[in-house]
Every structure is written in structure tokens, then in C-alpha cells.
């Protein structure tokens, strides 16, 4: 595509099929404590496959 470049992203629809293991970090255990930084967390299942 000449005018459109797509950034590589996780397919959220696919993640609905196997997601939800609940092992990823609770966002308030990182640094926020006063907001909700969900998207900042890494998926533990994907991390384990790397």
C-alpha cells in the first residue's frame, strides 16, 4: 500500500479465542496506583512463547 502503512499489532479478535488466563500483571502493581494503565501490561502467555 502506497499511502497506508500498518503498524504491527496484536489481533484482539484472535485474543478472544484463547485469552483470559488472568496471569498478567495487575496494573496497580506497576506504577500507577491512581489511574488504570491496562494497555501497558504485557501478556504473560505471549511473553512465555518468546
Amino acid at each position: 500500500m502506497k499511502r497506508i502503512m500498518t503498524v504491527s499489532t496484536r489481533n484482539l479478535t484472535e485474543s478472544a479465542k484463547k485469552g483470559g488466563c488472568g496471569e498478567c500483571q495487575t496494573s496497580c502493581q506497576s506504577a500507577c496506583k491512581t489511574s488504570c494503565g491496562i494497555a501497558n501490561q504485557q501478556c504473560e502467555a505471549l511473553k512465555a512463547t518468546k
Partner: protein
Amino acid sequence: MVHCYKNNGYNIVLDSNSGSVHAVDEVAFDVIKKYEKKSKNEIITETLEDYPDVTKADVEEIFSDIEQLKADGKLFTEDKFRNLELNIQARPTFLKAMCLHIAHDCNLCCKYCFAGEGEYKGDRSLMSFEVGKQALDYLIEHSGTRRNLEVDFFGGEPLMNFNVVKELVAYARSIEKEKGKNFRFTLTTNGVLLNDEVMEWANRECYNVVLSLDGRKSTNDRMRVSKNNKGCYDLILPKFQKMAKARNQQGYYIRGTYTHYNTDFSKDILHMANLGFEQLAMEPVVADPKMDYALTDEDLPVLKEQYDLLAKEMCKRNREGKGFTFFHYMIDLEGGPCIYKRISGCGVGTDYMAVTPWGDLYPCHQFVGDKKFLLGNVFDGVHNQKIINEFKLCNVYSREACQDCFAKLYCSGGCSANAYHTTGAITGTCNLSCELHRRRVENAIMIKVDEMFQNADN
């Protein structure tokens, strides 16, 4: 929902339901913006008028690309996740994270402290080993199949009760294997009592360390003061620098709070980066609107500009090989959370609870001291299931204001405590927080786009 925005010279298209991100040129940007609002012929006519160098074939090609992206599920995708909400509400929940209020006491009296100098509307108190042990046992007992269990030592100032902290970690380590669990500990500290012994212990035992510093000396010392009103910057800075170095610049955050008095907070973040810290976080103050340091809606334009300035500077430093991490810009587009996490949120009151020094359970640290949210205690368990059920139903689809927001799958509807303190409902939304979060998401994505172009250049 498609969100088109311009940032740092980039034209960015975010397809929020699929999480896809596209960087496009001006012509494609205009076509995509009009795509669902006007007919194809209208868009072609207008584009040819607006861009004399562009041919009809060029615009046809853009249409073809858009159709391809639609077919691939990367543009103009529908929200197919709403039905998951039912599954999320019906799901069994397991406790996996605990905020242990190991000390309701503090050796600083920061003027903005939401914990009220560490006391949380109660008496000064330190958690005993027996209460802490019971809390850890309670966590294991209610963690079901979850393997990674997170425990945050919080306060007040946790190092005022360091011996109990050490004993609890030793206890957890002694049982985690037989219980099939993996404890991850976080220590949050103001640094006053940080010494070589603590550092050595934390570097061995803690997955994460959160070190409180607000930035420039003038900023930090205005709010972060001792009982005799002396700022703590000079005391804590060398210790934090030593700690960051000892942790190889990983597994820690220097975390600041900005207020109405430093709406130019990007300077504070850059000050800390210039001091050599590579993991930085900075949060807007949580405050009663009546307080002089509380942020106001009038501050919003300046605050948004600050986030933009920070993002641009981070792109520049990344390209110079002098990059640093800012918590709110560390969106992981490829390895980030699944859709379940994005819908269900932080886990307040379900996956995550706070424990007071005497063992009371609250949905999170920000509700501690508010008796309406007292869930039970670590000895007798939860007796207020009604509140738990309310949090279980709390997700991005239960917040009306989120439905048309492009950022809803990046914050899951935001912080329930902020919502409650602003609107009186845990399913409400706090406008100021939302405005700031939307701008942070835009900037975080822009940085990823910049990285893509940087990699393409190299």
C-alpha cells in the same frame, strides 16, 4: 470505531475495535475520515479538488486499500466484544494481587497524600507478621489456578515496618513452591529509610520497586516534606540513583505526582531522565477539588500540551539512542493484554484487594478507610459479597460514557476509585482523567509509529 488524529507530523488512524494502527499520508487520511460519512463519488470529487496532483486512479487505489483492510479486520471493524461482557461477568474470579498496607504511618507528610500522611482516616498502625501471614495465606487460598501472585508493600511508608516485610517475603518464599505459586513483590517507598541493606534485599526479592520522586528539587520539595516542612529531594536522590544503578535500570519506576503547581510537569520528567533514571512514571494528583494543588479543567490544555512535548522529546531521544521509558507511553501493541483484560480492567475488588494493618479487606488501596467498601477481613473472609458483585459487573461496557471513546480498550473504562470520588458511582467516569488518558494513548501510539519509521530508516 475509527479515530483519526495528527500528532508530531504523523497522520494516524486507530481502528479501536481491532487495535490496528495505521500511519497514512494526507490524502488517505482525508479519505478515511470521510469514508463512512459521504459517498464514494463525493469523496473522489472533493479529494481531486483538495489535492490537484492526485489522480482519480490514486483515490480509487486508496478505496481499494481500505476495502482490503476492512476484509482483513483492520479498519472499520465492528465491536464484536460486547457479548464477551456476559462471560466476564459470569466468570469465576480469583484473587491474584494484594496491596499490603504494611504501615499506616509515614516519615514524610506529603501535602497531597491521599492516604492522609499514611493514616487512611484511621490510627497510625503497623501490620504484624501474624496479620501479614494470614493475608498471604488468604491470597493463596483464594487464588485458584492463578500462578503469579503479586504482593505490593504499600503504606504509608513500608520501610517503617521493614522487619515484617522481610519476614513475610521469607514466609512466602518458603511455601510458594509447594503451593505451586510464584510471588512477585513490589516495594513502594519514599526513600527516607532506604539503605544498603534494603537495597540488597529488594534487588534479591522484589520484582518491582516504586520510588517516589516528583522531579525538580523545587517541585519535589514543595509537596514532599518532612514533619518540619523540609523537602526530601537532597536526602533521597542519591539513594534512588544508587538503587536504579544496582537494578541495572530495570524492574523499578521513579514515580512522581504532578499537581496544579507544576502543570509544566514534562520538565520534571525530563529532569529525572537527565539524572540518569530510565524508568519513569508521573501521575496526576488525586485530590479534593477544593485543595489549592488540585488539577482543574482549566489546566487541561496545558497538561495535554505537556504530554505532547514529552512524547516528541522521547521520539528525539529514542533516535539519539538516549531513550527512556515513561509508564503511560509503554503501550505494547504486539504483546499487550488480551481482550478479556481490556474489557474487565484492573481487577479492583475481584482479582485485587488491599489489606489494612489489622487485616481488613478493601477493593483497592484507594478505598481503604471508606467503611462503605469494607469487604471483610483476612481472618473471617469476605462478608460483603454485594460490593464484590458490584465490582464484578464493573467493566468497560458498564460505563456509559466509554461507549463512544476510541481509548476504551486501553484503559478499560478507567479507575473505579477516581470515578467514585468524582461521580459517586464506581461505574462513572472522571472527565479530567479521561481527557488526559486519551491524550496519553494518542501519544503512546504516535511513539510506536515513530519507532516503525525509525526502524524502516535503519
